[in-house]
């Protein structure tokens, strides 16, 4: 039962809180952080859609190599990469086993393997872009693309409110635990303990919903005092707000590089 103790340590609220804050607020400086978010989003939309319709192996491998190189440059956190690769490998293995079970043979694995490469290209592209994009810049780029102001406000708001929310959630759970009586026995497979914690978790949303309702009213009233919903519709305000977004030479060089690389890969595909 050593691992249960370990898990209990890992699952302590304080640990989760710190882990969440660390992941949410740390953006490492890399090559991609200096690029314009609009260029990055346009670049990403190519690599998120086009690979779905490519079935040629040479092209897929070429795309994958490019993505791996970019992931290294972007310094994506190893934790995310591990989660990604375990998920991809696990899916193939599981499907292979089930296919064998049904009397098929391992020929099922080959098409699934190419599908996984396709998925890997797409997910690496998104990891590279979204782990190095600054949330504030991202929301402004969305504003510029015509996404409703409510959404881009939410991105910024979420980053501001997260520490407060976590703090409050922790306080509520702690007070429930102080007042309640924890089960003395663990029960079969820790059933009693798990049941007890789940009950606390659900109950603690009751005060949390009431408190958040008050807070969201305050927030919206404060926004309206500053004329948020009128400003959101005004084109001039939008222009003023996002005027700092400017493409540099680096952005166009990056796009040019990508275009050339894609041309090379598709050219090789035609030859082989």
């Amino acid at each position: 039962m050593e691992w249960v103790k370990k898990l209990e340590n890992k699952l302590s609220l304080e640990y989760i809180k710190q882990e969440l804050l660390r992941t949410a607020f740390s953006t490492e400086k890399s090559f991609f952080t200096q690029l314009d978010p609009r260029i990055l989003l346009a670049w990403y939309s190519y690599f998120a859609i086009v690979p779905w319709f490519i079935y040629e192996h040479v092209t897929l491998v070429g795309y994958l190599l490019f993505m791996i190189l970019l992931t290294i440059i972007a310094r994506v956190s190893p934790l995310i990469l591990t989660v990604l690769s375990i998920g991809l490998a696990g899916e193939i293995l599981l499907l292979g086993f089930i296919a064998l079970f049904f009397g098929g043979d391992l020929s099922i694995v080959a098409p699934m393997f190419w599908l996984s490469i396709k998925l890997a290209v797409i997910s690496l592209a998104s990891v590279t872009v979204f782990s190095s994009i600054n949330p504030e810049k991202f929301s402004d780029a969305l504003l510029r693309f015509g996404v409703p102001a409510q959404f881009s406000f939410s991105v910024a708001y979420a980053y501001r409110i997260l520490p407060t929310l976590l703090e409050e959630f922790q306080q509520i759970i702690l007070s429930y635990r102080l007042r309640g009586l924890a089960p003395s026995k663990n029960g079969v497979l820790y059933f009693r303990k798990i049941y007890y914690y789940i009950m606390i978790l659900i109950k603690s949303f009751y005060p949390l919903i009431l408190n958040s309702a008050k807070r969201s009213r305050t927030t919206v009233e404060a926004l309206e005092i500053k004329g948020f919903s009128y400003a959101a519709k005004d084109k001039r305000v939008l222009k003023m707000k996002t005027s700092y977004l400017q493409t540099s030479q680096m952005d166009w060089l990056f796009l040019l590089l990508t275009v050339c690389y894609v041309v090379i890969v598709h050219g090789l595909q035609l030859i082989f």
Partner: protein
Amino acid sequence: MLKKPATFTQSQKMMIFILSMSLYGLSNMFTELIPSVQLGPIELQIDCFAFIPLALCMLFHPFYAAIGAATGEIIFGELMLGQFGGIGEIEKFILFSIGMIVGGLVVRNPKKKAQVALGAILGYGLFLVLSTIVDILKIVIGVEEFEAVPGLAESIFIVEGVEFLTDFLLTGTLFTVLPALYLVPRLYGKVEPLLGLKPRTAANFRVSDVITLKFISVSALLSLGALGIALLSELDFNLGSWEPEFVDTYGNGVIWGVIGVAILCVCITLWLMMKKGKENSHDLS
């Protein structure tokens, strides 16, 4: 008795949106982190705390609560943790919102437990059914000659079916129906005044206020778009196998020429980027 339908001002809609977004987003961060338990091929994991958006959809305007929750998931659960799935998230956004809206519409009187339970099951169940269908479709599109591989179709259906059942039984009961039954009647009449709203009654809540003509047309357009993408791939629309005619006329030499020029361009671009990068780092120091 007030017969007037409940009206929502712009800022009340925004309040509902923000409330739903921050609460569901917070819960989503936890479900992303809670590890799953593997029992052989069956994976037990908490999919989401669907009771939060469902409870809010039952108490407030379902549309804004549902959209807020779906937005919260994208921002808290994906963007902040650095695992945004890109375009794939849009499909989840739409499906999740549809499920939650339907769940919220079923409930006319939040004090009646039977209605709340029905709404919770319907809402979450609809979302699960839709997302299972989309998952299967995705593999059918992504794998070439899907029907030709023996055993593939069966195993996909088994995997997706098992996932659907475990999600529905575990998350559906423990984290959807039971908490909704606990929370909704308790919150009813308490949380609405905090946002300056009247509690929902059968008299002031009409389905036609939510399902407007605009809503129907937008959702019809969205589903048409999704169908279009699915059809596009059925038509063997294949970007990689584009073979232009000039290859036949001039042979592979032309392609080698194009590749050569492209490589030259890559080299020049890389050189320029390095130069520029050095200048930038000088500026910073």
